[in-house]
């Protein structure tokens, strides 16, 4: 496998190769030892960190763990809660998969915090886009385009992120309702409050919501009783900190899915959840709804079930992308195909070296 230790070597590889499959740590799509595989985990390390600027730049192969350790020391954090951290996820892989976790609800997702990138295009040229300051409107916004591109548009070398001061405390409430519908209704009510929920996740099998609030400890403790009162219509309990940490960590690491399961990410809105739930509960698939009902995570270890899920999603007009599993196919459910998709891919990768998103 090619695992370049420098940008020069990566460039050389891209220039010489006919087919390239970029790979990070392999936490989501296992690396294969094929000719075209370009393992970027060797290009790692933090390049620059300016706590006063709320930014850092790092090579794409840097693990999120390394980033988090550094940010932690300075009381800062990545507000979008990138998943698969303990599994070893890298920045590059997380950007390519466009992945954000529960915390995305409050301040935005990976697309909102990635402010600059350096990448290799299909011709092996290094392109930089965006910048290293938190506000910038010069040039086209490739950092956003690369979020979710699944490695089909180029090789990420470096990324600059905006970060925020970390909240000093969090409190987690577990809210259990009588039915799924009641839970979804509670979820919608909460999103319209002025509590500024930090995360709000829905466990359909238990009619359960997990609500996280973040802020100063005194402020949270003063607010909680009022919130509990307002939520009197469901069974609400405050989770002790250690228990809460385990719960959130389990979500971030997708512990609720079988280890070998494929995971699909389907953008959704709360209104569409009941129908999808009904359609999916017939099958033996695991589901979880994140971001106040804005994303459905669907997991199954069965390849055939994957096809069935795809049809179900398609019928409901929902699209999904495979964020864990093999590399053969990414897109499930409803597909949208415009000529511009192909034209853009060709403009960026004229020799067709990178995989096609399919």
């Amino acid at each position, binding site marked *: 496998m090619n695992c370049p230790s420098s940008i020069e070597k990566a460039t050389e590889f891209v220039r010489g190769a006919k087919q390239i499959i970029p790979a990070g740590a392999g936490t989501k799509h296992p690396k294969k030892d094929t000719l075209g595989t370009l393992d970027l985990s060797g290009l790692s390390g933090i390049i620059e960190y300016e706590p006063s600027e*709320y930014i850092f730049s790092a090579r794409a192969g840097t693990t999120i763990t390394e980033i988090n350790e550094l940010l932690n020391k300075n009381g800062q954090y990545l507000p979008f809660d990138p998943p698969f951290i303990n599994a070893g996820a890298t920045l590059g892989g997380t950007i390519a998969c466009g992945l954000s976790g529960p915390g995305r609800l409050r301040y935005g997702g990976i697309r909102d915090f990635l402010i600059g990138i350096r990448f290799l295009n299909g011709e092996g040229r290094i*392109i930089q886009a965006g*910048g290293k300051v938190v506000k910038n*409107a010069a040039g086209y*916004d490739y950092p956003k*385009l690369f979020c979710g591109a699944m490695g089909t548009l180029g090789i990420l070398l470096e990324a600059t992120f905006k970060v925020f001061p970390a909240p000093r405390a969090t409190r987690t409430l577990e809210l259990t309702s009588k039915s799924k519908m009641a839970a979804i209704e509670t979820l919608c009510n909460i*999103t319209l409050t002025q509590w500024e929920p930090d995360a709000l996740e829905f466990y359909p099998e238990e009619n359960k919501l997990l609500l996280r609030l973040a802020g100063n400890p005194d402020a949270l403790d003063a607010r909680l009783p009022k919130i509990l009162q307002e939520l009197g219509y469901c069974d609400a309990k405050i989770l002790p900190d250690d228990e809460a940490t385990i719960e959130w960590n389990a979500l971030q690491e997708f512990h609720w899915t079988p280890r070998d399961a494929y995971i699909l990410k389907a953008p959704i809105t709360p209104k569409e959840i009941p129908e999808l739930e009904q359609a999916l509960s017939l099958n033996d698939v695991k589901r979880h709804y994140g971001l106040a009902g804005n994303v459905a995570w669907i997991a199954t270890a069965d390849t055939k079930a994957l096809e069935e899920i795809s049809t179900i999603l398609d019928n409901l007009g929902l*699209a999904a992308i495979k964020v864990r599993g093999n590399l053969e196919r990414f897109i499930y459910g409803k597909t949208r195909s415009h000529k511009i998709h192909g034209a853009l891919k060709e403009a*960026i990768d004229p020799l067709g070296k990178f995989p096609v998103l399919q």
Partner: protein
Amino acid sequence: MHFLEELAKTFPEDRLLIDKELLSPYESDGLTAFAVTPRAVLIPETQEEVVEIVRACVKHKVPFVSRGSGTSLSGAALPVETGIVIALNRLNRVIELDPERRIARVEPGVVNIDVTKAAQVHGLHFAPDPSSQIICTIGGNVAFNSGGAHCLKYGMTSNHVLGLKAVLATGEVVEFGNSSLEDTGPDYTGLFGGSEGMFGVALEIILRLLPKSETFHTILAGYNSLEKAGDAVSAIVASGILPGAIEIMDRLAIDAAEAAVDAGYPEEAKAVLIVELEGPQEQVESEKRELETIINASNPIEIQVAKDTTARLKIWKGRKSAFSAVGRLSPDFIVQDGVVPRKRLGEALRRIEQLGKKHGLRVANVFHAGDGNLHPLILYDGTIEGELERGENLAGEILEMCIEMGGSITGEHGVGMEKRSYMPKMFTNDDISFMKKTRTAFDPDGIANPGKMFPEGQAPALTLYGLHPLEKKGIISRE
């Protein structure tokens, strides 16, 4: 059939303007230094009509420039002589507003503030708030990825756009993104944001709405030097508080604001700092105490705390009126919106002052200190020989300074016509040629807003800078 004849079949005379007098309001945008008379102005009323116009442009290879309210400050809405302007103000329907999904689906001609007005009944608002928000359109905001005073915490326009429908410069109608916070595949919505009208025309935009903050706490501190105000910003940032807005104004800007709106800013201060906390009551209460300690320790000569909404709005009124007010101090001015790393703000301001002295021009400063976004206002008198050129040179040197400090030539006003020659200073040839290739995918014939952003092409002659016509009437003011 000829291009305009073909369109005349659909568009009556009052929506297909060709008379010189009728075209004149469209000759410039907010950067009045540039003026070009287009061949015609088309005023569509439906999305289908926009598609029809663009397809006719594709067929006849006629350039088109989309236009919202024409408040662009970088000349990006400047017409092309051989082309047409598509005026989108009549596409101003809020198609859908759904509190449950917290989204609004709007047409591009909807005015920014009207989204919040429509969302208010549900306790929601649209966060991006350029100071031109009572007049600029969502289409313009998207095309520029516009900002406002709350970018540090809430981001820019693109951070609040979930999806959009557009007719590209190939004639293809596309949909990117959806009503969810999440998306699949490359973020095409994000790429379209900030593309300055060079990819096509946005027809429908899905916006993310946020609940209005429960409470605000606004504090104004006066200092006897800009440096001290800058130090206070650093201390706030280091403390871990995340305010909704952090703004600074210098003496010249304060004087102008005082003369215009009598905001009651400290008389002796060389600089004022405005900090606004927002969020849940208890959190703001807790941060308020912390902020007070920081500000007290920063050696201010005066502190004003807004006791109620009226006092809060008064503080903001001074801030928001500052730009137009500065315009009163001088017949002409140039405004830049470069960005520097926050910790170098003090240095940047010192250098701007020196540059001003070198060129013999006054510069007023009003800026988004929280994100290092400068807004130097270069004052000059166009009737005095050589002052415009000196102003231009000074503006250029400020932009170069921003690049040298590791910042950006524009934080929110876009590149457009004005800053295109500075692009090569910020990006390499490879970067720019890559952007051009991307552009070609969207617009193979180069008909969508040609001549902007990239450094080639003939610039029309400069005339005088000055207030936007609507600013002169006092309808809008700028940040």
